[in-house]
């Protein structure tokens, strides 16, 4: 049960977008105002910085169709509108998109002979093909052959829908967008000079290199003297069979060994018993299985499965990246893309739960060459995925006969293992095998592994195309590979290319695109597609890159697909290769005159009053309100400075998917008031600011979470610094919405208030230097100095800590309400407050019971109840202090109103002795 409540209130920061649910739509309002007036207002009141940030956001989504500098989009490139497009034109185009449609940007609807309908902009049309940019949400490029087309119809309306501006929050946002488009409309000419057309990816390495990858995959080298060029990826190794024993079902093992190509189509393990009879195969497989089982420590055992875990596993399997290589499956477990996937085979018949979990948690123990990467799963995630992959195993288990191990068979199996040459790939340390170096040349005309015939050679599951590709590599002969070729080889061998695009190579295949997910759609495609690796060596510092590749450091919490780990030995060479190959021209930026001042300006720019980087970027783990773009405080550790300067000028040049705006479109600063609009110096200031890394000063406007500490159905306490008390304050919030703070140094009730308890933000944030801030209202402070003291010579609190008062702690009642304990001289005091609420009036109050005991009878002390400018005696028990606080003294005590330096004081003379005596005080707020 949660008895107290800590409420964290995310700041309602800048609202970047929202929906307008006013009676009149924003578009109608704006139209009524008129284009000319709006254009003028935009010039005067619009903020191009805000507009730039807004422009690529999901709503309104301008960049979906108008990404600056990109080709073949639905809408015109706004950076190339030119001076002839007036500001008023811009406003009109936004408000009424279909009024004037730019030449070449008309919308058409194409119907195919099979009845499919595509709407969008015809990008190009030749005798051979028609290319159309589809206006559906994913905005694909559709290529159609003229013979497929039934009909093409021109649409009267623009692709840009009417009322798009209604997705904006308010008029100000409209003005911001207009202002930004004004800024960029003529920036295209210089921006173009930098723009490099980006390949859409999907390419492969050359056939020769593909052949090398295949030869490695099928481990040709274990039998052949391979005289091809050497990849820097260490050769692929066969699975560690000693690991498999006890984890892989012996029945499966036996079936697989007997007929690998049929039991697991797509396996890279060859059938080495090509010409043998079915019986012979079966016998050999059985013996070898018994041998392999003998390598394990414990027998294979099936385990119970959990349906709930399997459901979680389904989700994980299809999001964390498993299906980047393996086939996604439907609800019945049927593989949907089995053709183009790495075969999983019948995992459910193969592993037991512990075995598969162990494999998923660290695949490199069983398969050290890292082709199956470590997906950075937690133990619990591995369990869930294993449940998913095994969930259909129960049915097959029932019919399975139990495996009974036989030493005799195992010994035979050991012999078989060597005779069949299994030891060429497996358990090499246990067997000695003679060199069998069949030269691998294309001139060898004898049929062998590459032939489709069955013979006395290993038979591989090779397609015709794969055979051709291998032959191509064989005929190519050895050549020294370039660094870029090595990169391509590594990226293909380790299948980096299924997620990452590097120039024309690789990238997410269209049929797998739907399995790449994000936690935050505001980031657009870059929020779900793993980053481009074009120029990555020019971008990332080697140390960072190594951490990403080798120790699993990640920077993009929004990508659901994980960056897997391949093992340092297999992948670390990429760091040097990327650094070697990827070069950007050095950026010459003048020297810094004043580093501190430069950093200060950078700090200013990062905040809301500058370029507002924190509108989208995380800062020191504090997420921006809209999206968790990469943490600004990690930029300096990651990025090469030259790359930063290039990227900031034109982010889309490096990543067409990014929604990062440029604040220097066309090489002109949007913020002309910072550093005189000097583009280089502005970027330099930001860069130097970012160099402070984790220690960079918090940018202005970063939303600090507000915390409220509130009483629930029990009291809540907080011992910290309170204003007017000092460091030994103890605040108590009571369920009935009354609160007090006790001073455990001066031994006094220090203040009371109603409503919410407290905001501990200043004592729980930073170094903790501040005070707890009482929330609520009607705060009444009391004078400093001990309440219980010598009647004639009370302690002067100006002199510090009262020497005869000693705090002794507190104990809690069943509602967690404290009874404070302290001592004055030889008097023991207990101080217990409870909250009260009048059910009819709703008035709240505090009933405070003080009890005193002393070994010695004494009548020389008094209890100061309250002080004020004027204390009115309502009756001899009830007193009204300064028209705000009513105090009733219950019981036998007689109170006095006496003069004090600040006005009047209400005090109760005490007579204290060995018998416990009590003073009861009732506090309520006086309302007129």
């Amino acid at each position: 049960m949660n008895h107290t409540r800590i409420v964290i209130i995310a700041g309602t920061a800048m609202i970047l977008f929202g929906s307008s649910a006013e009676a009149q739509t924003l578009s109608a309002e704006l139209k009524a105002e008129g284009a000319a007036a709006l254009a003028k207002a935009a010039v005067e009141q619009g903020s191009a910085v805000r507009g730039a940030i807004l422009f690529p956001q999901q709503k309104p989504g301008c960049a979906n169709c108008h990404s600056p500098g990109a080709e073949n989009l639905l809408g015109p490139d706004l950076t190339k509108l030119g001076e002839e497009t007036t500001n008023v034109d811009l406003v009109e185009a936004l408000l009424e998109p279909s009024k004037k449609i730019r030449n070449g940007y008309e919308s058409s609807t194409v119907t195919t002979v099979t009845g499919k309908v595509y709407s969008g902009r015809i990008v190009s049309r030749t005798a051979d093909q028609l290319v159309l940019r589809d206006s559906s949400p994913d905005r694909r490029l559709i290529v159609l052959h003229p013979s497929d087309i039934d009909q093409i119809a021109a649409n009267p309306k623009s692709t840009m829908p009417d009322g798009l501006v209604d997705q904006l929050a308010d008029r100000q946002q409209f003005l911001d967008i207009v202002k930004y488009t004004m800024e960029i409309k003529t920036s295209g000419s210089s921006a173009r000079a930098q723009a490099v057309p980006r390949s859409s990816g999907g390419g492969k390495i050359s056939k020769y290199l593909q052949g090398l990858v295949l030869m490695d995959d099928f481990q040709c080298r274990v039998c052949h003297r391979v005289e091809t060029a050497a990849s820097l990826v260490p050769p692929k190794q066969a699975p560690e069979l000693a690991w498999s024993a006890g984890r892989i079902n012996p029945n499966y093992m036996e079936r697989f060994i007997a007929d690998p190509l049929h039991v697991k189509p797509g396996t890279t393990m060859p059938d080495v018993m090509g010409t043998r009879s079915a019986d012979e195969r079966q016998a050999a497989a059985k013996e070898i299985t018994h041998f392999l089982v003998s390598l394990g420590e414990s027998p294979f055992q099936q385990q119970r499965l959990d349906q709930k875990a399997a459901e979680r596993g389904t989700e994980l399997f299809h999001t964390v990246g498993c299906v980047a290589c393996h086939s996604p499956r439907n609800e019945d477990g049927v593989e949907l893309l089995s053709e183009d996937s790495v075969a999983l085979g019948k995992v459910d018949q193969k592993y037991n739960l512990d075995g598969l979990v162990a494999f998923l948690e660290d695949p490199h123990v069983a398969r050290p060459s890292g082709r199956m990467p470590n997906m950075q799963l937690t133990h619990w995630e591995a369990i869930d995925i294993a449940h998913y992959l095994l969930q259909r195993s129960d049915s097959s288990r029932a019919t399975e006969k139990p495996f009974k191990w036989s030493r005799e068979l195992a010994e035979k199996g050991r012999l078989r293992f060597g005779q069949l040459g299994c030891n060429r790939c497996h358990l090499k340390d246990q067997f000695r095998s003679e060199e069998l170096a069949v030269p691998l040349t294309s001139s060898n005309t004898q049929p062998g592994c590459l032939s489709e015939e069955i013979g006395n050679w290993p038979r591989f599951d090779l397609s015709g195309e794969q055979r051709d590709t291998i032959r191509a590599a064989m005929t190519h002969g050895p050549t020294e590979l370039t660094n870029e070729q090595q990169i391509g080889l590594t990226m293909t061998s380790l299948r980096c290319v299924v997620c990452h695009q590097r120039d024309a190579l690789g990238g997410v295949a269209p049929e797998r695109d739907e399995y790449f997910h994000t936690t935050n759609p505001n980031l657009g495609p870059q929020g779900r597609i793993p980053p481009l690796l074009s120029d990555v060596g020019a971008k990332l510092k080697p140390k960072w890159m190594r951490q990403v590749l080798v120790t699993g450091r990640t920077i993009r919490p929004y990508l659901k697909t994980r960056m897997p780990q391949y093992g340092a030995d297999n992948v670390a060479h990429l760091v040097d290769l990327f650094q070697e190959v990827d070069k950007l021209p050095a950026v010459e930026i003048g020297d810094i005159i004043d580093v501190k001042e430069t950093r200060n300006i950078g700090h200013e720019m990062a905040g809301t009053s500058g370029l507002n980087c924190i509108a989208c970027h995380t800062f020191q783990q504090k997420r921006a309100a809209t999206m968790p773009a990469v943490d600004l405080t990690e930029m300096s550790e990651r990025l090469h400075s030259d790359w930063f300067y290039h990227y900031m000028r034109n982010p889309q040049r490096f990543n067409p998917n990014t929604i990062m705006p440029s604040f220097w479109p066309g090489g002109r600063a949007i913020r002309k008031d910072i550093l005189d609009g000097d583009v280089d110096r502005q970027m330099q200031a930001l860069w130097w600011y970012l160099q402070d890394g984790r220690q960079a000063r918090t940018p202005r406007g970063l939303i600090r979470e507000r915390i409220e500490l509130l009483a629930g159905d029990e009291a809540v306490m907080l011992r910290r610094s309170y204003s007017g008390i000092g460091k030994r304050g103890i605040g108590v919030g009571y369920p009935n919405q009354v609160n007090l703070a006790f001073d455990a140094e001066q031994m006094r009730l220090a203040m009371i208030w109603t409503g919410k308890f407290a905001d501990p933000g200043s004592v729980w944030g930073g170094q903790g230097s501040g005070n707890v801030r009482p929330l609520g209202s009607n705060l009444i402070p009391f004078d400093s100095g001990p309440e219980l003291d010598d009647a004639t010579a009370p302690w002067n609190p100006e002199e510090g800590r009262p020497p005869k008062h000693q705090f002794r702690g507190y104990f809690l009642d069943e509602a967690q309400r404290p009874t404070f304990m302290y001592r004055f001289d030889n008097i023991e005091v207990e101080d217990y407050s409870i909250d009260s609420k009048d059910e009819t009036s709703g008035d709240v109050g505090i009933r405070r019971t003080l009890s005193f005991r002393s070994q010695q009878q004494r009548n020389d002390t008094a209890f100061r109840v309250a002080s004020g400018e004027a204390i009115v005696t309502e009756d001899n028990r009830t007193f009204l202090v300064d028209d705000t606080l009513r105090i009733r003294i219950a019981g036998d005590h007689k109170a006095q109103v006496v003069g004090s330096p600040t006005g009047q004081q209400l005090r109760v003379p005490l007579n204290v002795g060995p018998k416990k005596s009590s003073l009861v005080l009732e506090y309520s707020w006086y309302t007129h």
Partner: protein
Amino acid sequence: MPNHLALLIVLMASVPLQAQKLGEYWDTAEQEAKYYRIVEVPIPKGMALEAGSFELLPDNRLAIGTRRGDIYLVSGVFDENPQPQFERYASGLDELFGLSYKDGHFYVTQQTEVTRITDTDRDGRADRFETLSDVWGFGNYHEFAFGSKLDSEDNIWVALCLSKSYHSDLPFRGWCMKVTPDGKTIPICSGIRSPCGIGPNEHGVMFYAESQGPWNGSCSLKVLEPGGFMGHPVSFKWYDLAENMGPKPVEPNTRSRLLTERNRVKELVPYAVVFPYIKMGRSISGFMVDRTEGKFGPFENQIFIGDFSLSVVMRATTEKVNGIWQGACYPFREGLATGLLACQFTPQGNLIVGGTNRGWPVRGPREFAIQRLDWTGITPFEIKQINARPDGFLVTFTKPVNRDIASQPESYALKTYTHIYQQGYGSPEVDHTTPRVVRSVVSDDGLRAHLQIDGLVQGHVHEFDFSRIRSAEGNELVHVNAYYTLNEIPAD
């Protein structure tokens, strides 16, 4: 020599183009991970768990005291794959930097006081909070208080941070006080600056972790010598309140050397183990001795200490030489997720670490975290410990060394330095010397090398570079540096 050349190139390549404010990494995390795994202890969503102190409970739960003033009792932390259950035992307290449990009571050190906390009705939540001692003044938030666990006589030792980190505005700021089970409070020593950890060393003697700043050239572990003076004289003004301490010591001179001032100020206790700034942390914090009987690897009975700024864990060993405590520190594990404040060995022999990164610069990115270091069972090749000898040092390795290399004096590089003992903040390393290893005698088992050294310097940190040493199998050391503070050269 080609070897030299290669080393030189590596060194040059590692010179940063633009120095990071928090200093360079050791760059050993990748290696360290083979021997010590970092296991995440997940914290429930929405819970801000800023650990400041840990304690083990008899029922196999971990108690966590937090900066926000909660005590959580957590089960499941010691499981191989932890999925812990958190129960809040107490809340509303003030910066818990000391947590100890005995016979049904918690003894906590919070900023204001030492408190005994009890769950009298046994409903799983504390209901009685008794102030054992609050004799010290508390008027500034920076007046942190770090409390030890109960010592063998059930006392709690409390190290009290200065006021605003530079002054001693209120009684006993900058002092260590011993609080007895009945609440009696005994002043132990003066001269503390900014403690961030307190506890016994491997010989059971109470030490504390001091931070770099005025009168402290670098962070250090110091012994809390009763009657002693820890080096920062601003706290001298409270001797009148501490009769047991005798008269106020002589004021130390600024811009001096600690060794020089030791001769002038007889109460001055030299730092036992200096942690050279940035190389070995920047704000050393909570520490604990490995009593796991080998379950945490080859470093049994050594001190493990965290660092707040750099999010690393280091090791230290101490020994008493000529009546003075001294010893060495060694890198251990970097790459923890947050600023470390406290650590705790578990019954299984793993090391829990935790803390927060708020308030001061911290390398670890997370606002707070609890992590566990598990030994993988593979023994790393490391400098196990260094001990002073009259003629040099005895270096002990965790695995046998390559004898050929280890017996050549040229395989060792050594330099010494000290710090300026001064009122100003911190100190550069000064008075550098380069002693020479004259002879190295390797033990028969290959685990020890006795280095005879020409040029030992009393009072200096002796910084070792063992990068040329190889194990018998030919492997490099995981960490090649170690730092011995030679307050005293052992008498023959």
